């Protein structure tokens, strides 16, 4: 019995004696997911950054086209160049709107999930600690029982009652430890299940919103180009 206790202590300091493979698998999955989500988040940040740069450059080009239009003598060409500048300004606004969409749809979503995963990892750690506490209680109970047995042989009735009381106390603690562990395990299973369904749902919602913003942008662009074409054709 002593040997088994020693073994348990060893396992505790190295790793938990996982009786449920589900937890080990999930933990590994979440490690992987964490890495993937961080990569995605970085990709989106890069996208947002470049789009901001495009907005700045578009505005700058619009200004230069406007100045060119102002200095142009040929009336129709001057007008066309000024319209060109206006189209580019409008396109710049579209870029800014898209930056907003990229950021608030994707960047925030991914950021939230990265934070969520960190919290999930924390909860897994918490379960490990709970298990540890339970094991501690079991070991302590074992010791108390051994102490009682010794007292029985040593025939010290006065200390015996105290030992029996302590055994009862630790039996209670062992039961509580086991209940706590099972409760946290159940909670995790439920929360993980919900997380995985929500994750899919959240992404679906974001994709639809993103596509709506993309379609809207393109439709605006079509309007701008259709308005500009007659201006270009009118140059005589």
């Amino acid at each position: 019995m002593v040997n088994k206790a020693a073994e348990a202590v060893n396992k505790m300091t190295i790793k938990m004696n996982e009786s449920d493979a589900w937890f080990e698998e999930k933990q590994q999955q979440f490690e992987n997911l964490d890495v993937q989500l961080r990569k995605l988040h970085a990709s989106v940040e890069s996208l947002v950054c470049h789009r901001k740069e495009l907005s700045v450059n578009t505005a700058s080009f619009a200004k230069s086209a406007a100045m060119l239009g102002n200095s142009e003598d040929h009336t129709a060409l001057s007008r066309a160049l000024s319209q060109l500048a206006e189209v580019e300004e409008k396109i710049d606004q579209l870029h800014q709107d898209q930056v907003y969409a990229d950021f608030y749809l994707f960047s925030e979503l991914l950021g939230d999930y990265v934070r969520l995963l960190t919290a999930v990892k924390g909860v897994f750690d918490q379960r490990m600690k709970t298990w540890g506490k339970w094991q501690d209680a079991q070991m302590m109970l074992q010791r108390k029982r051994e102490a009682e047995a010794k007292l029985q042989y040593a025939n010290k009735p006065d200390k015996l009652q105290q030992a029996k009381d302590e055994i009862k106390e630790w039996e209670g603690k062992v039961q509580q430890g086991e209940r706590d562990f099972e409760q946290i395990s159940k909670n995790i299973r439920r929360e993980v299940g919900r997380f995985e369904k929500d994750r899919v749902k959240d992404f679906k919602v974001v994709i639809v919103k993103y596509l709506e913003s993309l379609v809207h942008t393109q439709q605006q662009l079509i309007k701008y180009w259709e308005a500009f074409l007659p201006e270009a054709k009118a140059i005589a």
Partner: protein
Amino acid sequence: MEGSSAEAALSVSANSIRITDLTQDGDVLTFAITSQKLNGSAGVCVFRTYEDFDWLQQSLFSQENVPGLQGIIFPPLPPKALPSQLNMQTKAFKQLGFLALGQDWQSYCKALEFYLQQVATHPTLCKCKALDGFLINSESPGKQRGRKGIFNRLSQAVEEMRKESHKDVDNFFQNERNRNTSIAALSKVATEKLLDVVMTEQKLALACGHFSTSLHLCVNQDDADAVAFSKVCLKLSDIIEAVKRNYEKVANNNLTTLGLGLDLESRYQEAEKEMLFRRTCKLVELETVKKGTEKAKANKREVMEAFQKAVEKEFNLTSSVAKQEIERFHSSRVNVLKNFLIDWCEQQLNTAKECAELYSQHLEACRNMYSE
């Protein structure tokens, strides 16, 4: 007009000149130039390198017996392309600008093609024998180094540059010089700004590519929920790929139409600037000679007056050719820019329509899939 220039007419149709192919061997680019002979339907194909184009340009500059040659606005030759030096930081890249960005040198070839067409449609330059030889002789002009064009701006001394702001005697020319100074600078800036836009669009396309790839890597089949998440990631990956392709198209449209057009306009304004500068130098020369004549002692006066008359004649000839050239330039540049603007708008409009259609399809599909 001397008879010699009337005989040497171009033997091919100017509008049929095309650069149809390009081969690259290290830093040397060889261009295949085709054109149609005017007599009959025979086609000609010749192979030329940049050195040959340069030779042609120098030949045009150094023609003899062309009255008022210095008043001509010479079609600008694009700078030389050195493929091995084409990374973003080099001066070579900055010089080429738009022409360096096209896929497989498309824009560069187009610019060289324009150059040849502009020379071939120029009422005076089309008669230059060197042009005909360039277009039809199977042998390349070779490594001949004729005398360097007298109009090589780079070789002009710094003091000469001060002449640029010398006040003109003719309002028409003073106005044109002012206008040219302003437009040349502004069109150069506009070209550079558009180049920045195109490069950023290309960077954005790359970033979309990375995002799309990262989404692909999120696929795993561990359990039902993981499979569901994977499907969502793959769908998004497809969408981001479409966004990437859109940016690539938009950038390419900008490059091959408006970019090319602004680049051409910018270089043509520089060519006009060089012509105006040559005339201004002639003006300065004339005024210097006049002053000299006034101060001349009686015994030298006749000679000086004869010399002054000759310089004056040349100056007036140059000015009259210049006036024609300026008027021709004004009308043709408007037409050229108009065509580029129309092309640009039509291509961007088509791209936007295609893209809108594609995104709408994706949206429809997603709404259907996700409403379950």
